[in-house]
């Protein structure tokens, strides 16, 4: 393989199709979820350490900055879930035609944003 292959990586000019967005956002949301896992484990342990720890964890979750973080986490979880279910369906051969794949990508990408905002609005 030639090492001088032309590479076009101007991120502002690449027009990614919606299926590409579903894919790259699946990666980004996965990385976000992994990076916040230690924090989740910390809160899990704290909340189970006793009544005082439970109160600490609860008040922690209702602080301003954490609430914004929770919106990002909610989106990451939902996108990873919806796009992941879509990938599993593609693996099973469901909806692999171009129109079907584009439709399901739109559904996964927009449902994640919509459900995250609605859930965040209701609970926080």
């Amino acid at each position, binding site marked *: 393989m030639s090492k001088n292959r032309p590479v076009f990586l101007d991120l502002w000019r690449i027009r990614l199709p919606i299926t590409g967005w579903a894919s790259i956002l699946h990666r980004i949301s*996965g990385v976000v979820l992994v990076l916040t896992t230690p924090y989740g484990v910390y809160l899990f342990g704290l909340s*189970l*350490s006793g009544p005082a720890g439970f109160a600490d964890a609860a008040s922690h979750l209702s602080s301003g900055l954490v609430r914004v973080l929770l919106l990002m986490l909610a989106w990451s*979880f939902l996108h990873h*879930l919806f796009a992941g*279910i879509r990938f*599993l369906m593609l*693996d099973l051969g469901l909806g692999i035609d171009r129109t079907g794949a584009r439709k399901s990508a739109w559904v996964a990408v927009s449902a994640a944003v919509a459900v995250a905002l609605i859930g965040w609005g209701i609970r926080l």
Partner: protein
Amino acid sequence: MSRRASGLKAWAVQRATAVYLAGFSLYLVLHLFLAPPVDYLAWRDWVAGPAVSVAFLLFVPALLAHAWVGIRDVLIDYVKPIGVRVSLLALLAFALVASGLWALQALFLLRMG
């Protein structure tokens, strides 16, 4: 058979764990969203219940395996210098195992306490 999670095996591990993680995490999130625990005792009793505690014990290794395969794929795709890549993979493995043990510790302390 190779014990390393690579190639087709990693692909299969990623999908098998995905199904479990999707199911339990959806249940967990819906429970916390629709019926948030009112106090410590309610939360502890829910987590320590026979079905939920076993589900959590299974959740930990499933999450670790899924995170390992996923982040490893990302690092292999974007981090080309081999020294940096291996260092990040080592850091990832360490952080994942530490997080997993930490979570298991919380679950086992609950059982004893």
